[in-house]
Each structure stands twice: as C-alpha cells, then as structure tokens.
C-alpha cells in the first residue's frame, strides 16, 4: 500500500497542476487544524494555497458533503477515500452533481484513525473497502487484499439482543441527543435545506430534545438514508454525545442489500432503491 506521505505528495502535485491549468476552480482536500491530529476540510482556490494541503491518517472527513454547496457548473476537484467515492457516485445517481463537473482524486488507503480517540477505524465503522469506486486520478497503487470479514459483522452483538434489550439500548442512546444536528451536517447525503425537522405544518417533532422528538428525528433520518447511506461512519464521529448512529445506518444498508440486492453508491446508473421498485420484490419482506 502506498505510503501516506507519498499520497500527500501526489495530492499536492495534482492539485497544483489542476489549478494552474484552470481545469478546476477549486480543490477540496484537507489542511492542518490546530495540530497534526485534527485536520480541517480545505478548499484550495489558487496554486499558492496548495501548500496548505496535507493528508494523514486523521483526514476522516467525507468531503463529498461540500459538493452540493457549490453553485451548479463549478468545476471541482475532490480528494476521496473509498467510502467518500461511493458518496460521490450516489450524488451523481441523484443528479445533485454532474460527473463532467468533477475531477475525482482517488485515495486507496486502509488504516484511517479517529481524531477523537486515535484508534484505527476501518473495520468497525466504515464500509470496509480500500479502493475508491470511481476516480479520475489515483493517488496511490490499488490495494489488493482488502481484508476478510464484512462491514456488517459489527452488528452481530446488537442483532443478537432481543427486542426489549435493543429498545432499552436505543432509548438510552437517543435520550443523549441534544439536537445539535452535527450528524445531519456531516452526512454527504443529507443535503435537504430546509430539513423536515424544520417544518411546522406538520410539526413532525418538537424543537426541544424531548425523547419522542429525538426518536422521530433519528428513525425518520434512518428511513431517509435507507439505501443511500454509503457507510462512511462520519455521523458517529461527528456526534458530540457519541451516539453510535452508524450502527443503525449500517443495519439499514445491510437490509437494503439483502432485500433489494443493491448497495448504495456503487454504480452511477443505478437508481436509489427507495425511489425504485422490483417486480420480483417478494412479499416475504413484509412478514
């Protein structure tokens, strides 16, 4: 696997070339935060600003969420890891961005670390893939053996619980929610503005973080992300109260894969599962 420093070099070289040739007007990557372990998302607009770019094991942010914030037709280059590339594919599927406006810099890497805890994160929270699904330029060699086990193994413990135990688990977790909406902010697929939570007719949930309001917010978001979530784990990392939201999203991704035979963000010409139907969908899933 290409050494991380080498990837950073390649990133800077490509960013400089793209900006100087005006092929793109902005390069989305990472820059130093207040220290090495806490990088920040960074938009380099001129060749000079490329110097600030860095890439290390802590650059976990999913930059795809910024693609929907730029006005249409802006040419953007974006550095994406495996999971982030699936987010880009999903956005293209939903026609929120156009492939021709993007230059995708793929980063094949395993071993990202969670800035908060410093632990390695790939097995537990992400989609377990090493190579980006879609890229124009690859900033390192492709990784052959992506390691055994499926991303859904981590669900075994929760799935083994009986319903009452699972309910008390989630009830406790949701009660911690302070409605800061960081999870919504961090998610590349949550681009609705205003969100259903901001509606007042009907008021789906009360504005203050009451138990039932939290329940409605999180369960509805799980539904909105079903078949669209690319399992990057950013929502849990962004959550100040450490609610393991990624587990629920992972479970939904697993169910969608088994029921509809399609994983999110894998192929550009797929249609998102919830706005599609299969004649061969069996009624068993309703039993």
């Amino acid at each position, binding site marked *: 696997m290409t050494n991380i420093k080498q990837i950073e070099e390649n990133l800077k070289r490509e960013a400089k070339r793209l900006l100087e040739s005006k092929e793109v007007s902005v390069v989305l990557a990472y820059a130093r935060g207040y220290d090495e372990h806490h990088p920040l998302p960074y938009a380099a607009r001129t060749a000079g600003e490329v110097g600030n770019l860095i890439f290390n094991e802590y650059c976990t942010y999913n930059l795809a969420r910024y693609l929907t914030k730029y006005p249409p037709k802006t040419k953007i280059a974006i550095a994406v890891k495996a999971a982030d590339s699936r987010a880009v594919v999903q956005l293209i599927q939903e026609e929120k961005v156009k492939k021709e406006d993007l230059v995708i810099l793929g980063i094949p890497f395993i071993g990202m670390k969670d800035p908060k805890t410093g632990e390695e994160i790939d097995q537990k929270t992400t989609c377990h893939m090493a190579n980006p699904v879609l890229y124009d330029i690859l900033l390192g060699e492709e990784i052959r053996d992506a390691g055994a086990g499926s991303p859904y193994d981590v669900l075994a413990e*929760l799935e083994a619980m009986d*319903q*009452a*135990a*699972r*309910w*008390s*688990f*989630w*009830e406790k977790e949701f009660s911690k929610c302070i409605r800061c909406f960081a999870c919504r902010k961090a998610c590349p697929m949550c681009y609705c503005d205003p969100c*259903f939570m901001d509606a007042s007719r*009907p*008021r*789906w949930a*009360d504005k203050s973080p*009451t*138990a*039932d309001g939290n*329940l*409605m917010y999180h*369960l*509805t978001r*799980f*539904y909105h992300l*079903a*078949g669209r979530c690319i399992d990057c784990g950013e929502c849990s990392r962004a959550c100040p109260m450490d609610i393991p939201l990624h587990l*629920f999203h992972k*479970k*939904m991704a697993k*169910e*969608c894969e088994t*029921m*509809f035979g399609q994983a999110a963000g894998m192929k550009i010409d797929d249609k998102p*599962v*919830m*706005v*599609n*139907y*299969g*004649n061969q*969908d069996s*009624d068993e*899933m*309703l039993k």
Partner: protein
Amino acid sequence: MDFEPKILGIACNWCTYTGADLAGTTRLKYPQNVRTVRVMCSSRINPSFIIRAFQLGADGVLVGGCHPGDCHYGTGNLYARRKLAITKKILEFAGMDQKRFRVEWISASEGNKYAEIVEEFTRDLKALGPQNTFRIEKDSRERI
C-alpha cells in the same frame, strides 16, 4: 376488564377500504378494535406516520393496500412495499415488537379476508398486551 388493544388501520381507498366496506355489507362480525384512516393509496403512507402512530399509543398498526399489480395508480403499492418493508426493519431494529406492525394486501373483493385479519391481529395483540415502547403519555404531548 381485560385489555382491549387499539389498532390504527391505514387503508387504501380503492382496495382495502372497499374490502372493509364489503365485510360490512356482507354483515361479517369482527372485533371493533381497529380505527381506520382512509388514504388514496398505500404509497401515501409515510414511515413517519407509523412511528407517530405508535407514539400516539397505538397497540398495533395495520396497513392495507391493493395486491401488487392491482394498484389503481399502477405502481403505487410496489413503491409502498419497499417503504413499508424498510419501516418494518427500522421498527424491529429499534426494538418495537414485530407482531405489532402488519402490512396486508387486501383487494376490494376480499371482505372476509379483511375481517379474518382484523380478528387475528386483535387476538395477537391481546396476547402481547399494551404497547409501551414508543408510547408517550398524553399530557406530555402538546396539541399539533
């Protein structure tokens, strides 16, 4: 007085609601625990409705739609099937007892099937007892 479950029925106007009417015109007798909301198509049902129904204290939710292929709007219930399937999985993973949420395809000519399902569902729910998972006490809930 033993426990009488409250079931919220959401029925599609063209098939299940008409089927329920047919059960009435043929004077079939079935328990009166179901209160039905009529919607134009089973695809009108938003998963948030189901979550809200359980929050409002429903002991069971019965969604009724046309058989796949019979939908008055063509493909409405095919989308609904996926939406309701994922809703079932959300409820299950969150910890709601699976037997409290039923989705049945009941056509306009299946009055007896409607009556049988309501009877069976009421029996199951009586065994399960009241639903206290999502229920929120009435007083802590302001009016919409």
